[in-house]
């Protein structure tokens, strides 16, 4: 983890209040592992104090074209896909090329290979289940798994068609994608758990590993569904954060365990957890955007 001042390369305005922020981060970008996140600070203000946690959507190179196979590209660009939901993200939306932000990254345990690879090998397919901006947490793991030759499929649900972002990067890595929108503007009309359940029911002889990220209610519903069909499930959690580096204990969630083991930090032990480790019943009001 490094605490740097990063320059904005681009802050691309996408549909529906979504932005893709590219930051010049030569020290941090190469250190990123799938599933990690960044804490972004708007500089020069004391009214909006805390850094904002953002999934690291992608790491790329400033050199657009690699110049042929075998050429090693230096990863020096960190990309964050975010939606404007509050004061911090509203300020982020105003960033222009050349502006500076405070960037603390990469953070969190991420999707550690030794934890999911055995399950991934045992699965017929890896299913990425995204709810809204939760898609931002899943691209790097998907890229990583694609490089290793795993078969992957995307289930993506959101409120409207305009919220289905990040597809350009995601689709090439998937065998297939299924979409759901609450207002029916694209794909299945309703929640993504319905087409997911249909898929499970149509393939009861198959084993899947799920990687899930999205709003609270969607996570719970997906986890319950996966549990019913006995598929292992990794979830990328979110929570309000203070420091992002494990010190304030503000982002802790209740996990299986007692005493001092009863809570784990989304910023340090997480943000990725096995779904059955989280004590879901106690988490009534978690989630920032619900």
């Amino acid at each position, binding site marked *: 983890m490094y605490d740097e001042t990063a320059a904005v390369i681009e802050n691309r305005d996408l549909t529906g209040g979504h932005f893709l922020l590219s930051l010049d981060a030569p020290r941090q970008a190469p250190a990123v592992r799938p599933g990690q996140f960044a804490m972004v600070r708007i500089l020069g203000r004391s009214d909006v104090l805390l850094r904002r946690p953002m999934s690291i959507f992608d790491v790329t190179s400033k050199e657009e074209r690699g110049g042929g196979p075998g050429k090693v590209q230096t990863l020096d660009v960190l990309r964050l896909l975010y939606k404007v939901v509050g004061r911090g993200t509203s300020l982020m939306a105003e960033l222009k090329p050349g502006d500076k932000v405070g960037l603390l990254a990469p953070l969190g345990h991420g999707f550690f290979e030794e934890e999911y690879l055995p399950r991934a090998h045992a699965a017929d397919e890896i299913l990425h289940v995204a709810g809204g901006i939760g898609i931002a947490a899943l691209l790097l793991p998907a890229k990583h798994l694609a490089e290793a030759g795993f078969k992957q499929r995307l289930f993506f649900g959101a409120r409207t068609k305009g919220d289905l972002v990040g597809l350009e990067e995601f689709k090439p890595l998937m065998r297939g994608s299924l979409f759901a929108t609450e207002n029916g503007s694209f794909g299945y009309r309703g929640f993504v758990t319905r087409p997911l359940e249909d898929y499970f029911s149509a393939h009861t002889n198959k084993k899947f590993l799920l990687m899930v990220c999205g709003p609270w209610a969607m996570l719970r519903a997906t986890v319950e569904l996966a549990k019913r069909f006995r598929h292992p499930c990794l979830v990328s959690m979110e929570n309000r*954060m203070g420091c992002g*580096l494990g010190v304030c204990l503000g982002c802790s969630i209740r996990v299986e365990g007692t005493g001092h083991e009863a809570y784990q930090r989304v910023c340090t032990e997480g943000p990725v957890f096995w779904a059955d480790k989280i004590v879901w019943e106690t988490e009534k009001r978690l989630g920032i955007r619900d």
Partner: protein
Amino acid sequence: MARKAKAKRREHHNGDASTVARDGVSAAAPVHAEEFTPQIETEIAGVRFQNPVWTASGTFGYGKEFAHLVDLNQLGAICVKGISPEPMEGNPPPRIYETDSGMLNAIGLQNVGARRFLSEKLPFLRTLQARTVVNVFAYSTEDYVRCIEILNEGEGIAAYELNISCPNTRCGGIVYGSDPRLTEEVVAASKKAARHPLFVKLSPNVTDITLFARVAEGAGADALSLVNTFVGMAIDVETRTPRISNVTAGLSGPAIKPVALRMVYQAARAVKIPVIGIGGIASTEDALEFLIAGARAVEVGTANFYDPRTATRIVEGLNDYCRRKRLHLGDLVGSLRIPEG
């Protein structure tokens, strides 16, 4: 020299007013400004600190967590996360919520407990030039004493900081720091048990801070640190539920600075023992205000969350200020001048 210049650039970037102000007046600085070497060491209750800039309990973990981001040896002291006799798991989430120029927290004093602190956290702290101040809390006077007795077995602790903003569960949950009699009881009992100097961290949730300052001094406190957080709350209007699971929570950050400063000023005038200032300190200028008001040292708290190098920048800024003004720390402390008339 390069490191200092880089630190100054970074300080300006983060909107630190003191650098800007300094740049504005440097043209008027005396010719011999660079020759003056300010003395910013401080001594409190017989303990020597290399400088008066410390980190506040609950905002810096047990120190090691920041080791790769901050040069810990630049700090005067690290006040560790509050320690209780047994480990505590803390409150259910949500535990924090940002407010304008501040934040609310009700972490619930989650900590590893006194024994694990001694075996797992203290050894690293001992290796630092920064002194280790151990913040202590409990929910009964007997447990405060028990905690201190366990900690007495450790080596490398410079002082205890008594967190009295806790409810006394034996007395129907009255907060120690809001009741003069309970404050006197816990300070006296803790002082008797303590192997090291005892700093008492006062709660600001009182009508008259000078009363509590005098009570703590009378009960044997070697120094006072103030303030702890102010009790506040926030509500989610969509769900009509509190933002924090504990309902009420502690407010900290720049928003509380004017009130904290006023309390430090009043407390420093009410007692003879040293006073350590805490509350919304995020820049050199903030720290200077507290020192001028009468604090012999300051603690940086919430700022550590969003800018871990705040405290070390303040050390540099303090040196720059003292050099420019040709003042030693001793000249600065309590040097507030109130014009006549």
